[in-house]
């Protein structure tokens, strides 16, 4: 069964024609041509497919495309604004908080969502926010550092 869904995608009002059984991650990657959201495990365990649904981070492999109807979706492609990187993205670059980069989009989504609700997180709160984003390369150390640094940049309004 196919149906029409209407939703906001990275700030743009969007309409799409989707199969009922398509997951959000496959819909974004294949139908909306937004491959930034990654497929890591297909079972909601690794966080590589994290997007924002109404400002909250969710694993898009655990979501049907049809569930986006009347909601607000943000993917990694929507984090930079007018070509200007978000402070979280800048700090990931400057702090060398990535290696293979496969977990990075999902990690950044969780980080941006965290800083949106908690502008001054403790180290524990940062680690708790990204506990659902598995990384096999970095040991998380520089990721935590980058998120903390971004929080400071945002607080200072730089």
């Amino acid at each position, binding site marked *: 069964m196919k149906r029409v869904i209407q939703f906001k995608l990275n700030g743009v009002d969007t309409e799409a024609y989707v199969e009922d059984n398509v997951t959000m991650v*496959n819909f974004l*990657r*294949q139908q909306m*041509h*937004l*491959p*930034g*959201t*990654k*497929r*890591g*495990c*297909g*079972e909601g*365990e*690794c966080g*590589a497919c994290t997007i924002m649904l109404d400002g909250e981070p969710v694993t898009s492999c655990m979501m049907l495309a049809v569930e986006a109807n009347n909601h607000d979706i943000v*993917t*990694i*492609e929507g*984090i*930079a604004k007018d070509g200007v*990187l978000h402070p979280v*993205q800048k700090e*990931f*670059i*400057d*702090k*060398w908080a*990535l*290696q*293979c*980069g*496969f*977990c*990075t*989009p999902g990690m*950044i989504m969780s980080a941006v969502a965290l800083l949106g609700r908690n502008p001054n997180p403790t180290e*524990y709160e*940062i*680690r*708790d926010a*990204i*506990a*659902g*984003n*598995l*990384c*096999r*390369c*970095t*040991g*998380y*150390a*520089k*990721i*935590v550092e980058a998120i903390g640094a971004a929080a400071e940049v945002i607080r200072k309004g730089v």
Partner: protein
Amino acid sequence: MAIVSKEYYAEIEKVYKKPEDYELAGKENAYVRIDAEAKVSGKAVYVDDINLPGMYYCKLVRSPYANARILKIDFTEALKVPGVKAVLTGNDFPEGRYLGCPEAFKEMADKEPLCRETVRMVGDEVAAVCAISEDAADEAARKVKVEYEPIKPVLDAFDAMGSDASAVHYPDTNNVSMYTSMEAGDVKQAFSEADYTDKYYYQTQQIVHAAMEPHGSVAKYENGEWTVWTTTQNVYVARYWIAWGLGVPESRVRAIKPVIGGGFGGKVDVFAHDLCPAKFAQMTGHPVKCILTREEVFLGTRTRHPIAFEIETAFTKEGKLLAKRCKHVLDGGAYGGSGNAANALSLIVANLPYKFDNVDMSAQRIYTNKPASGAMRGYSACQVDFAHESHMDEVAEALGIDPLELRRKNGCTPGYLSPTGLQVTSCAFDETLVTCCNEIGWDKRDELPEGKGIGLGGSCFMSGTGFPVLATPRNNSNSTLVRLNREGYATVFTGANDIGQGCDTVMTMIVAEELGLSMDEVKCVQSDTTLTPWDSGSYGSRVTFLAGNACRRAVGDAKLKLLTHWADEWGCKPEDITMKDHRVFIKSDPEKNISFKEALFSYEEKNFGRSCSGVGSFAHEGGDQQIQKTNYGNYAPAYSFSSCTAKVDVDMETGELNMEDFVFAHDCGRPLNLRAVEGQIEGSVHMGLGFTCYEECLYDEEGRHLNPTFRDYRFPTALDMPNIRTFICGEPDPEGPMGAKEAGEGTTAPVGPAIANAIAAATGVHFHSLPISPEKIWRAMKQLRETGNPHFGDEGLVEKFAAMPKLKPLQSQVHH
């Protein structure tokens, strides 16, 4: 040690930039990864992101049995699924074209692209389906009916060696895939004279790489040529095996490595998911994609070898190590491939980081009906170090010597030549030991209360296993091209395979540094068999060292041509001229100073427009294929050394482990970028911690996986990691590019013993097997309370080793 290629490149190396002029190498915050912006924006292109017009999808059909004969494959129902375009079985590939090991012994290749008659592990591929969508391919694959005749699988390496075990591949071979031994000195004599001798047993478990990106490939076929984009760590070797499996010349296959989401050794081999899309592309005329599910990655790619150890050592009462005798039994799983090399490597690693004259070691890799074990970060060093370094602490306890002092007394020193020919050049092992102990508070360790403990582990790893791969001239590991462009930039063409570790950035940095350009003025073309020259691959810690040196020679070659031209103009020697900050100049003469662009324009003027380009290569002299069999000779141009200390807090009721502190000291020569090295070390600690405390692949008695998902196979999350403090030790290495040695593979190895030794200090129990889970600690403490026995996890190993048949070095096994 005379290195012939060094003489060959001596003129070129004369124009290398002097360390005092470095603007990028080793300078903090001087540059960022060249792929960082793409990766943080979701724009980096991984294999699954490649979509070509008209692309089809391929799904593989896998065996549910660990060992069985294939009787019949029925595609009737599958072909009824709308959108199915083609199907494949093993018979569609040329007979006798087995896939195997990239490093050596291609005659030992033992894996058919799709199984023809026999499946040897749960997940072994028997058929493939191609359809217009992923869903249709998936549905059709589920509808393929295969009839099997199951055979009782052999799941334990020791059982597999028995004379009554069924043959996984070759009958009457005790299921031996590889056997190597290493002898030197007079071990018998040393043991008879020693004050102290012992015998201990250890066992490590099977784990997986769990790179976040699943394996896969996209293939197209056009103008008689295949192009395959694949998740590989070595694009030239991938091309070799793909061409081989298809039965076509290599010149007709182009292999390209796009951005890779982690490899750790799991993407070294070539698999059905590389061959089948290529075949389908030819059959259908459409591009074909195949991406594995996470479960398929668990079932059908590679794992880390479980290893069982018997270790005997002889010491003087003062703690001088006289002799080591050991047997390693590696569980190789169903196939060889990259796993074959782990066998010899396990013995080489067991010879370092300590000095001793008497060696009697053997290692055998045994086939079983489980997923194939292959290369995995540390390439047996993690397992070996857990066993041998835990063992060092046993010795320290028995002799009443401080574990730190015992290691310092026997540790490698610069220039050490081992009795079997391993040549250490730079070595700061002692400094790493002292540093990580000082930083953790080693002196106060006996004051810690019960449940808390500090442990130490040290290790050594080859920096640049310049081992011959396939049939490479002069054991060459990498050849690189650099072209200087008069418009003010340079292009480097490197076959080096960036799998996330950042070698693209390293190559870019080396060229930028030598030419005095900024990072964005160097364009990097990488890992494409049509565009870039040979590289042997990203494993065995070779890339920065081997490809980096080749890259430097390539830019040096171009630089020499350019500077020779200007030396003529200015009446000086080429090495008197500096290239820095976009200028070409003589330091002592302000008149002789021009821009990079002008310098090149003038060069091309003189040379009729011939562009200024350079070629460089690196070969490791002494790397001899025979080393895999004889284990004599030098394995690598340099060795890196690491030590680490862990402070643990064990919940004595539950066995739960909290890591309070972790200090890592690494000798990698000159770090080309501190943050990159720290990142590698932090990642190593994560993987080492996972290996030691969390991860294990579990099977039932039929060889079926019990936990092929991230729900049930767990490694540390951000909340589980300790804070890690990193210290870089040592001096620039004379052989490394700009003095660098490896960082990232050997660094995984000492983590396990540091944690195991810390747990021993905290609880009084010495663990002989991994993972050291909370339940295992709980059981061990129970055993200690009830029986007083402080050793846990080596049950049954004494008998298993005693019952092992005597093996002889095998002749090359080939399929007939």
